[in-house]
């Protein structure tokens, strides 16, 4: 789960990491109120959306007077950045930046541990920097036990360029605190970019990203509170609430409903292989009961991009008759107009075939043949 910048900064503060003075505003009035609370109304106004590239989209701007605060905040609020409409902005005091650096901790699955990434060059894409100037990016491998050991930070900081040596202590403290947050909150990523040094020598987290391990949300209840309706795609949100694994894909028209993540990905791949375009990834997850199948079908039916529905079930433990029941219920209740291709194979498939044939629904037994049919149907309608 990704946090908004203002939420990340709230957590930073809780862990003693200095952030600029600021607050989130849901309206122009609130933005003005925040600006007025500062000694001077010189602020930066930042769109709070869970997507990258808000700077390029014009979602981050300086305002140097209350008039500008009003004008700019009203411009940014309501702005569309990628698929998201901006509902809230962060209003912060402007900082006098002397130096921008980069600091993050990530889960490093490939080394079964963690990694700290630090650079004296901040405010840039770190992956880009790592590719073009790898010597400017320092990495530290951290083992779950013993965790981060102080000398590892000393080693990194010993390589600071001479003009930055005087900030070593401040950076050291930020590293320790960010690591503490990273571990205690089960984060998969905590990033400060840029970590700024102000003209009076303070280290401040000027922008921040935090992602939390979804599997660990149960023990980070405070983080769950950070989930806001506007930050999610509505279909993805509904799917999550119904315990379905669903990802909306751009530009597709074949809605997929599959049991199992691997088979669901494969289904998309096979559709693409035969020239079609999947509109989504949908994995029913473990329990493919009738009700569950119906919920899943509803999400696909509600997706206006979808013209053809492809149901692909391999009944290993899942019973095909229950899936058929779910399909029939959905047909009745949802009044599905879209074309539907069904592939069912496995446990109780014979029963399922009979149930569906009674309703004149034909069924495929092989994934490939079914996929070809779905692609054909989707193209016929596309024309």
């Amino acid at each position: 789960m990704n946090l908004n910048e203002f939420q990340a900064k709230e957590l930073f503060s809780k862990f003693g990491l200095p952030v600029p003075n600021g607050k989130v505003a849901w309206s122009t009035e609130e933005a003005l109120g925040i600006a007025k609370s500062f000694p001077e109304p010189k602020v930066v106004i930042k769109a709070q959306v869970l997507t990258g590239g808000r700077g390029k989209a014009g979602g981050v701007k300086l305002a140097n007077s209350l008039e500008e605060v009003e004008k700019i905040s009203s411009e940014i609020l309501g702005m569309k950045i990628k698929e998201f409409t901006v509902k809230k902005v962060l209003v912060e005091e402007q900082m006098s930046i002397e130096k921008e650096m980069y600091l993050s901790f990530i889960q490093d699955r490939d080394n079964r541990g963690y990694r700290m990434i630090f650079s004296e060059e901040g405010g840039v894409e770190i992956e880009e920097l790592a590719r073009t100037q790898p010597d400017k990016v320092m990495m530290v491998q951290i083992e779950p036990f013993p965790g981060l050991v102080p000398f590892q930070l000393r080693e990194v900081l010993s390589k600071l360029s001479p003009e930055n040596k005087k900030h070593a202590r401040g950076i050291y403290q930020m590293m320790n605190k960010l690591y503490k947050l990273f571990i205690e909150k089960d984060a998969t990523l905590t990033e400060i970019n840029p970590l700024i040094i102000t003209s009076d020598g303070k280290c401040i987290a000027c922008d921040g990203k935090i992602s939390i391990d979804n599997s660990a949300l149960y023990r980070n209840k405070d983080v769950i509170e950070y989930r806001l309706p506007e930050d999610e795609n509505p279909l993805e949100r509904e799917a999550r609430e119904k315990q379905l694994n669903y990802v909306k894909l751009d530009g597709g028209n074949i809605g997929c409903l599959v049991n199992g993540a691997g088979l669901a990905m494969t289904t998309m791949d096979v559709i693409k292989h035969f020239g079609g375009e999947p509109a989504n990834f949908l994995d029913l997850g473990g329990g493919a009961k009738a009700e569950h199948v119906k919920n899943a079908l509803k999400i696909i039916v509600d997706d206006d991009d979808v013209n053809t529905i492809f149901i692909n079930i391999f009944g290993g433990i899942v019973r095909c008759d229950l899936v058929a029941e779910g399909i029939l219920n959905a047909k009745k209740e949802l009044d599905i107009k879209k074309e539907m291709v069904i592939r069912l194979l496995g446990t109780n498939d014979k029963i399922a075939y009979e149930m569906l044939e009674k309703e004149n629904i034909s069924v495929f037994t092989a994934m490939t043949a079914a996929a070809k049919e779905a692609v054909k149907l989707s193209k016929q309608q596309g024309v």
Partner: protein
Amino acid sequence: MSIIINSSSRIAVQGAAGVEGQFHMSEMIKYGTKIVAGIDPAFQTDKVGDLDVPAYTTLKKAVEEHNADTSLIFVPAPFAYDAIMEALYCGIKKIIVITEGIPVNDMMKIKQYTKGSDVVIVGPNCPGLITPGECKAGILPGHIFKKGSIGVISRSGTLTYEIVQHLTEAGLGQSTCVGIGGDPVQGSTFVDILKQFNADDDTKAVVMLGEIGGVEEEKAADYIRDHFTKPVAAFIAGKSAPPGKTMGHAGAIISAGKGTAEAKISALKEAGVAVAVIPDDIADLIKSELNK
């Protein structure tokens, strides 16, 4: 021979009080698997539900009384770390974790704790494993498998069944099929299982089912190129998955340009692995590899 489990495996099931656990226990018993005990802190009876399996509240008892040598874990995610540690402390050397949704940090700790030890952990977030005709430890549908000489390693469940169905239909039975699970941090990786298949005389070829995310398929490619002596065919799911999105499995995510299907496919091909474009190709690929 076979790997990890066989007809003499003595399995204790942790998290045996739940409906799901008991359903699968009964399926495993029907398959002929030796389930020696069910463990759950909630147990207040001597037997597991309607089954003729002794019930205990601690694993230690099951090991002491029934010489359990393998543990199968159905415990809910928040308690799975504890259950795995319990198995480790009881001296269990084979731990199969079905549970989905275990925090990555918990698995990291367990990986570090078992570093350099001879313990085999399979999973989490996996369907378990099966040595056809001998022993089934997990939730795989036994009827689609057939005894034979193809080793299968897979990161996903239903895709495995799909492909095993093709194999079985093509007359290609399996030595052992191992679901290593869809999590970012796995108890056993492709390489770990490949090493076991390399040493298993009954395995003549291996099918590897990978997917996007991480670099374990690439590490497997390195291992296959340098050390593996048997033919391998592979399929990688997720060629059409967008970057930055988790595709059902917690581990199936392309991040920072790493973990793409393309990278994995080309690494495997360079290592001499026959990579299938769609699942239907696998059986033929294996056959032609075996005839080489």
